């Protein structure tokens, strides 16, 4: 029966297409959260030229602040978002003041910045483990029903939708700040040359303050979204390493690059776990990192930096 055979094949094709689209959507939602995290790395890199590894710790703290404001304070979720993003914004700024500013004032080599960032990230992760909060996994209280919204055969998780929408809004506001406001102009100028913009009357300390504040706020939002989708535990920093990979992938120091790299990484990840095996997901992310570094170390959209003697 050739007709039935044909129909059967058609059906399979449609099913495969649905699975494919489903993976793309899942990839977009996780990729958008990676983008929120990656932007924080890129913002700092664009001005200070070092990778702020402590950003992962800030994201983790954001997830915890969100968790405790939902469970202990019992506030609605949008207020929890505000609390956690303010908390992490404050934390990031405090870290800049305590850790990086003394180094900056001394014109320390970039190695010292990375080492301090690493120290700060170890500090943040382990202070949570050693404190009464402990290393246990915690689940956010259910905020939305888990029944997905059906778009034809494609299931759209409510949390996935929220992740995507909130990330898009936050990234949009960030782009607005950087492209349209005066402080954004200062940020862009400083990223070209710290010395030059100082001469032009830009208060570099203030710009760096704003950079860490913006990165911190986004980290809080990202941490909470991540906690809502999965669980909260002190080693969330390991996942944020992947957002860092995404930032490298798109080109460190470039914001569109960070967003693009994140979305791409999110899609590649869901594709790997969908079609290969979820065991290979992280392996592929790290292999990709090395591959990108070898082929095009400045990333897909990175600015090329030269060593000035």
């Amino acid at each position, binding site marked *: 029966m050739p007709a039935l055979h044909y129909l059967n094949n058609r059906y399979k094709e449609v099913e495969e297409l649905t699975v494919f689209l489903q993976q793309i959507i899942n990839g977009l939602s996780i990729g958008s959260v990676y983008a929120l995290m990656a932007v924080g790395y890129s913002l700092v890199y664009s001005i200070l030229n070092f990778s702020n590894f402590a950003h992962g710790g800030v994201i983790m703290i954001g997830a915890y602040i969100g968790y405790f404001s939902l469970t202990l304070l019992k506030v609605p979720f949008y207020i929890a978002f505000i609390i956690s993003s303010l908390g992490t914004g404050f934390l990031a700024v405090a870290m800049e003041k305590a850790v990086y500013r003394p180094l900056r004032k001394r014109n320390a080599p970039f*190695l010292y910045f990375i*080492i301090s960032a690493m120290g700060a990230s*170890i500090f943040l992760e382990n202070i949570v483990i*050693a404190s009464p909060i402990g290393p246990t996994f915690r689940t956010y209280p259910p905020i939305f029903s888990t029944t997905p919204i059906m778009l034809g055969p494609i299931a759209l998780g409510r949390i996935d939708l929220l992740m995507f929408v909130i990330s898009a809004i936050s990234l949009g506001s960030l782009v607005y700040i950087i492209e349209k406001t005066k402080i954004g102009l200062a940020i862009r100028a400083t990223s070209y040359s710290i010395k030059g913009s100082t001469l032009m009357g830009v208060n570099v300390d203030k710009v760096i303050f704003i950079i860490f504040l913006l990165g911190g706020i986004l980290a809080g939002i990202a941490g909470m979204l991540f906690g809502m989708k999965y669980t909260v535990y002190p080693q969330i920093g390991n996942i944020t*390493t992947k957002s860092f990979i995404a930032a490298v992938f798109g080109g460190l120091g470039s914001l569109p690059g960070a967003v693009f790299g994140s979305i791409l990484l999110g899609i590649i990840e869901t594709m790997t776990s969908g079609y290969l095996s979820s065991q290979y997901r992280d392996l592929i992310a*790290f*292999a990709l990192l090395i591959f990108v570094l070898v082929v095009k170390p400045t990333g897909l959209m990175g600015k090329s*930096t030269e060593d000035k003697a």
Partner: protein
Amino acid sequence: MSWVYFSGILIMSGINLLTVLGLSLLTGFTGLFSFGHAGFMAIGAYISATMTMKMGIPFIPALMIGGFAAMLSGLLIGKLTLNLKGDYFCIATLGFGEAIRLILDNIKYFGGARGLPNIPPYTTLTNVVVINIVAIIVLVFIIKSRHGRNMVAIREEEMASQVIGIDVFKYKMMSLAISALYAGVAGGLLAHYLGYIQPIMFKMVKSTELTIIVIFGGLGSVSGSVIGALLLTFLPEVLRSFYEWRLVVYGAAVILIMITRPQGLMGGKEFSFKGISKIIKRFRNKNKDDGEVKS
């Protein structure tokens, strides 16, 4: 404190020390920063354990093979990434270390995530001490040689050393290869001491802990690394109740060191009896001067 327990800690600090020595050459003397040394340890551990368990090769050659395997992978990763700027190199080592762990997680031959049990316990205090002494002597000779001075020149000013004709890439490769060799041998010793190995032992935290020891001891000081490795392996053992807070204190200490005393404990200086006698002499002279003034 029984002798078995005490020698156990000594062996562990010896194993840490061996890796730290290699890392000291890379970070302290050449100015490259690695997040992936646990990966080299893992390669050394798995290769040498397979050699003794499945191929029946004696312990010392197996250790050497493990070390050389780590060195080869170091050369490979160096060839690919060492001509990148500093920051990108340490990102690449991060990717390398994690990729090694995840690959080992998925290889059935090596027992996957459950690890490799029943490794014969060949590591003793004697061979750890002997290997460490040999390692320190070799390292000191390298550092004192022309090659070592070239590495220090690269650390101080890469551009300038390139201009005066130092092959920067070659010396970075050399430094990375030697430090990977040390880490590989240390991994082999670790496997034959514990009797089992798992990929999870070689997480990024392990790499960062090793780097912290180097920083703590002092960048550019071999004796600083020795003191750092011994101190930071002993302290958490002695203060067991402090164990959970260990890494918190490490993190804070690293930041403090960077802000106040970036040269670390020894500050680029070496421990020597000559130096100590000099300090004592200066002290004595001071006293004498004081005495003279009084009289």
